[in-house]
Each structure stands twice: as C-alpha cells, then as structure tokens.
C-alpha cells in the first residue's frame, strides 16, 4: 500500500456526509433553506457558484489517487460534466458543469471509492497539500503523507473551526532542503526537520498566503516533537478563530492577523494557548502514527540495477535516435530513491488545452497506466499536472508511447509552457480578465521545444483577477488580469519564487492588452537570454542579479511615457 485506506469509521463519515448533503439540497430546493443559509453549507461541500454554473471541487488529500478513483473521476466527467475535469492548485480535481440536483448522487459515487468533497471551499480548513514526490524523492528526509493524513482527519468536520474568518490552508513538506509544497505561502506550513540534537520533529510556519495581499509566512516555532502536531495546529487555529478579523473579508486571512499583531505577539499568543492544551489527549500516540504510517509503506519494488549514470546515460543513448523521447526523459522523468525506478510527470499542458484540463478518457487511461506501470497510484501536482511516482526505467519507453497518444507527454515540466492558470473570465464570476486564452497564446508563441529547453526552468503563472488563484505573485513571470477602463488588461510581475528562497514578484510597469502581454513575455525572455552569465544561470538568478532595469528597458522601449497603473494590483 502507499495510500491511506479507509477503515469503517472513515467510511461511515463520508457516507453520512453524502446523506446529510442530500437532505440539505432537498431543503434548499423546497425553499426551506434560503440561498444565504445554503451557501456556506454547499461551499464546505465543494460547490461554488461560477459564472455559468456550479463548480464542484472534489478533495484529493495531498494529491494521492488510486486507479479506481481515477476511473471514478472519468465516470463523473462523462456523466455529470462535459467530458472533462480540471486539476487544481490544491491538488484537487474540479468539475465545471454539474447540476445541483446531481451532486448527492455524485457524492455517493465518490464515497464508494473513499472520496468526498469535504471542505474544498468555504471558510474552513481546506485540503492539506504536500510534496507531489512525497515518498519517492531521493532528497526527502521523511515521508510527510502520514502527517498529512493525521491532519486531514483532525481537520475533517472539526466542530470548532467550521466557520473561521476566512479559508485556511495547510501544507507539509518532508524535504527541508527543497520545498516543493510552497509551505511559505500557506496559513500553516509544516516542515519535517531534525533539530540540533538530531531529533526528528517539525518546524512550523504561519501567516503566509497569496490573494490580494501576498505575504511570505513566518517561522513561529523552530521545533516541536511529532506528538504535538495536532495541539500546536489547534492552538494556532483557536487564536485565529477568536482574533482574526471578521469585519472585512479581504483582511480576514491569518496573514493579516499576524501582520497587525506583529509576529512576536502572535507567536506568544499561540504559545500561551498551546501551553494549556499540549498535554491534553490531542497528543499524538505512537500507535496512531504507526497505524496511519503503515498505509504508506513502500510498494513491492523489484531489486533492480540502476541504469548506469541514472538519467544521464539513458538520455545520451537516446539523444541521437529519438529526440522526442530524449526530450521527455530530460524534462519529465525525475530521479527516484529506489535504484531502477523513476518518477514521471504527466504534463496536462499540451498546447491546445487549458492548463490542467483532463478528459474522461485521459482519466481512464491514466488509471490503466498507473495499474500497469506504477503500482496503481497517481498524484495530482499543485502545478496542475499528474505524476506516476514509481515507474521502472525499463518501462519508460512504452509509457512514453502511451502518453504521447494521450497528449500527456509534452516535455515541458518546469519550463515556460508548464503554466499554472486560473479559470479566469471564461468561468469565474470574480475574474476581471480571461486567463486561459493568454496561456494558449503563450503556448503558440513558445512552441519550439529547443528554445524552451534553452531558456530552462522558468515558471509562468496567470491569474484573472487580484484574488490570485493562479499564484501569479510567486511565479518567476507572473501575469495578472485587471479591468482597465472597462477593458481586459494584463500586468507583468517578475521575480517571484514559491520555494525555499521565497520571494514575491514585482510589477514591471504599465499593463498591456492581450497581445501586448505575450509580446512582453517574449521580450523578457529574449533579454534574459542575452544577459545571462551562462546557460546555468536561471531566469530567477539572472533577474535577482540584474533587477528590473534591463527588462523594463526592453519591454517598454517603444512605449511613450504614461501614467503608471501599477497601484491597481495592490489595491
């Protein structure tokens, strides 16, 4: 096993939830419940009203799916949607076109495969996210998934924290040297670490977040032992629930509380609360940890000899013969902690499809591939891709063939066209501008794979409004849609980073129209290529060395000076 399997208690809870929600939908349809009363209830069940229809968001705890669940998602896409679903930045899956009256039935289907839509929206604790390569990354200190699952159970229908001032997101990484879960941009970020005495425990960050006011979290506790994870989180949540602002929804996230109180007073308030509950029954037991952890035991790997030089030699052997395959090996195939195995990213980023969209047939096919090549498991990445975590090196060529047929083999993992993109004005009632067409236009502009590889690692993230669902603040190149005098316009931010050396992107200058923004990105990239010290200096490193200036000069060289509208983005 390498996924948590429900016992009778877990199963009972999701089935009772499906029944509860069916009753709530009935009372809403009959008019007994007003829309105002129904709204928070449906949100906490993943039903969000978009521009044209309800969006239905299904929880995928820390992104982990098995093949039965993948097939069920394919079935739901076919039966209740228009044949596709969407991978989200919280490692969830959402559908854009379901009907309200179908949801109770869909929930029953989900409960059959140990899934649900609990707390995927609303002002509550959301799906706990983690490193998509948890359990297989060679640089990992410890598998974070057992702790994610323990947090999932603690946060599911927590009676005290169902009506927080605002949404609340937790991420856990088990690789302190390389954060792939963006823990610094979460309300609580948890890092598994060793302390100076060499003991294993957690470092706790709090008060990070994106949205209108992007904030990098603060480390508020250098070390706690494993048994205090729940009590420490409960203390943070209680302080937030009692003292977080409720007068203005745009100032209600914990990041604002931490900023207004100051990090140190906030930390002291948490510590004071924690001191009173740390020795309560919330203390995690070794038995409970082990009960959960045994679900994440490594699958039955074969004893294999690693291909000599791991990826390198494999790649060299292929480069001359099959360029497509070689490029894919180079970009989408990642190291694995077990010799002879690799981790494979399935990019949902082909050039004609909105980033992160997966069709019903792709769900089914990925399920088959997971069964055949990866112990029946796949993972949703927060970058809106899928991963097969445990593929034998000897299977890579066959797998590549199948992925090419499925349009899931674009060799662009971590490159310019591997974008995060919010649904934008095509779907979302909050958006000021469309984001998907910008993404597709960028794909057309950057369709030369040699060029993309030459540019190297560089993230582009696109949000259609200042709520920042597309994470543009933490992209190396961020694009923000705004409404400028009634027309869609786009701002460019540079220099954001979502990992260990966290930074928030800065607005380069005045906004562009939908064609201008794509030209501007191209000019930024050209400038980088001209100015980088060597092929090894990444875009982010180059930007940090040089600052805005050369990029500004290149992008605005033909522009006549005019009013800077940059303040709109931080309003």
């Amino acid at each position, binding site marked *: 096993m390498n996924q948590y399997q429900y016992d009778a208690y877990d199963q009972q809870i999701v089935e009772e939830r499906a029944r*509860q929600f069916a009753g709530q939908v009935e009372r809403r349809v009959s008019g007994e419940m007003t829309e105002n009363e129904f709204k928070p209830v449906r949100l906490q069940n993943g039903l969000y009203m978009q521009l044209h229809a309800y969006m239905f968001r299904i929880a995928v705890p820390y992104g982990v799916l098995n093949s039965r669940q993948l097939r069920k998602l394919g079935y739901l896409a076919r039966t209740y949607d228009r044949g596709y679903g969407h991978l989200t930045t919280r490692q969830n899956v959402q559908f854009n076109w379901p009907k309200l009256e179908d949801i109770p039935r869909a929930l029953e289907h989900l409960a059959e495969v140990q899934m649900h839509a609990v707390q995927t929206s609303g002002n509550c604790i959301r799906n706990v996210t983690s490193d998509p390569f948890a359990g297989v990354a060679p640089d990992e200190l410890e598998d974070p998934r057992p702790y994610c699952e323990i947090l999932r159970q603690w946060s599911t229908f927590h009676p005290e924290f169902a009506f927080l001032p605002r949404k609340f997101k937790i991420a856990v990484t088990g690789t302190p040297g390389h954060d792939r879960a963006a823990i610094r941009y979460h309300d609580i970020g948890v890092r598994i670490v060793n302390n100076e005495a060499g003991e294993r425990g957690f470092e706790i960050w709090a008060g990070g977040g994106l949205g209108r006011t992007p904030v990098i979290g603060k480390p508020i506790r250098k070390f706690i032992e494993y048994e205090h994870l729940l009590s420490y989180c409960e203390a943070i949540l209680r302080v937030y629930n009692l003292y977080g602002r409720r007068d203005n929804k745009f100032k209600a996230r914990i990041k604002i509380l931490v900023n207004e109180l100051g990090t140190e007073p906030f930390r002291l308030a948490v510590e004071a609360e924690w001191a009173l509950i740390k020795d309560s029954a919330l203390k995690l037991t070794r038995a409970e940890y082990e009960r959960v952890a045994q679900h994440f035991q490594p699958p039955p790997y074969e004893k294999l000899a690693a291909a000599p030089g791991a990826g390198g030699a494999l790649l060299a052997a292929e480069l001359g013969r099959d360029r497509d395959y070689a490029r894919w090996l180079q970009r989408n195939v990642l190291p694995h902690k077990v010799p002879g195995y690799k981790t494979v990213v399935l990019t949902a980023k082909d050039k004609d499809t909105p980033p992160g969209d997966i069709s019903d047939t792709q769900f089914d096919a990925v399920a088959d591939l997971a069964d055949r090549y990866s112990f029946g498991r796949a993972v949703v990445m927060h970058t809106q891709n899928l991963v097969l975590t445990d593929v034998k090196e000897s299977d890579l060529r066959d797998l590549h063939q199948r992925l090419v047929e499925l349009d899931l083999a674009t060799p662009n993992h971590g490159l310019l066209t591997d974008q995060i993109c919010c649904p934008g004005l095509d779907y979302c009632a909050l958006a000021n501008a469309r984001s998907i067409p910008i993404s597709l236009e960028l794909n057309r502009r950057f369709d030369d794979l040699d060029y993309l590889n030459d540019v190297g690692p560089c993230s582009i993230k696109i949000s259609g409004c200042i709520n920042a669902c597309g994470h543009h603040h933490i992209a190396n190149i961020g694009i923000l849609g705004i409404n400028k005098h009634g027309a869609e316009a786009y701002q460019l931010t540079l220099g954001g980073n979502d990992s260990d050396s966290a930074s928030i992107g800065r607005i380069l200058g005045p906004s562009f129209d939908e064609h201008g923004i794509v030209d501007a990105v191209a000019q930024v990239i050209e400038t980088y290529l001209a100015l980088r010290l060597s092929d090894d200096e990444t875009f982010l490193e180059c930007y940090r060395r040089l600052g805005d200036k050369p990029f500004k000069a290149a992008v605005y060289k033909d522009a006549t000076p005019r009013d800077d509208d940059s303040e709109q983005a931080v309003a």
Partner: protein
Amino acid sequence: MRVIKDRKIVDDAWVLLAPDAPVPEAGDVIVHLEQWNTGRESFSGRAGKIGVLLKSHESPEQIQALAQLPLIAIDFPSFTDGRGYSSARLLRERHAYRGELRAVGDVLRDQLFYMERCGLDSFALKAGKDIEGALSAFQDFSVTYQAAADDQRPLFRRVNR
C-alpha cells in the same frame, strides 16, 4: 418560547434583556455581560434567575463569578461568525462551566451538530425555523474524529482502530 434543550423541545421562560434595560423584580432574565459584572451584587434577593449573554467579541475570562450562573447564552450574530464555538469550548473545558450553555441569535439546524460538540446544550433556533425538523441534526454523524467538549479524546484514543 420553545427551545431545544438536551435534544428535546421544551417551553422556556428565559427573557433576553436589551443592554442597560432595567432588570425586573422577578422572572428569568439574560443580561449583558457588562450589566452582570457591574451589578451582580444588586441582583441577589430578586425572584428569578439571572443568565448572561456573551457576545462574539467577548471572551469567557471576562465573566465574573461564572459558577453562580445557571445559564450563559452565546450569541451568534450571524451563523458564519464562528467565535462562539471557541468560547463554548473554553467555558466547558477550561473554565469547567457546568450550567446551561445556550446558542442564541442566527442559530440554524445545519450548525447544531458542531455546536453540541463544542459544549452547547440548548438552542434557541432562529425565529420561523422548523424546530421539530432540526432535532434530527444531532444524528447527522455517528462518528467524529476530534476531541471536543463532548469527548476529551480524539477518535484514536476512543477506539482501537
């Protein structure tokens, strides 16, 4: 007025007074926190019980002589204001309050399960709502994961999983 108390519908005579309204000579009344803290000496000897209203920005530590109160009403100005859940747990678990803990204000069926878990045991449902129908909300779930006022043990300490 009919309220839910210990999962049953009962007739109830508690009257919530406006802030600073004079406290009548007799009858069971719920007064605001300030009134209780400043005037509680003067209430002894009147016929009828006194309870206190705790607004969502007020905290349990502010209530003086807590143990003397037969009832504390926790105000939910809107059902989406979740501060009352923490206040209820603190009253039960930290201040060992054993009297009646009543939810008042925007109290709706769909929140009763959570409220009861946090230690509230009586519920003045919002006017116009189906009080009989609301009783079934306590059975929404038969399993819970967390420690709360109703059980100090999380599921992993309650059962052998």
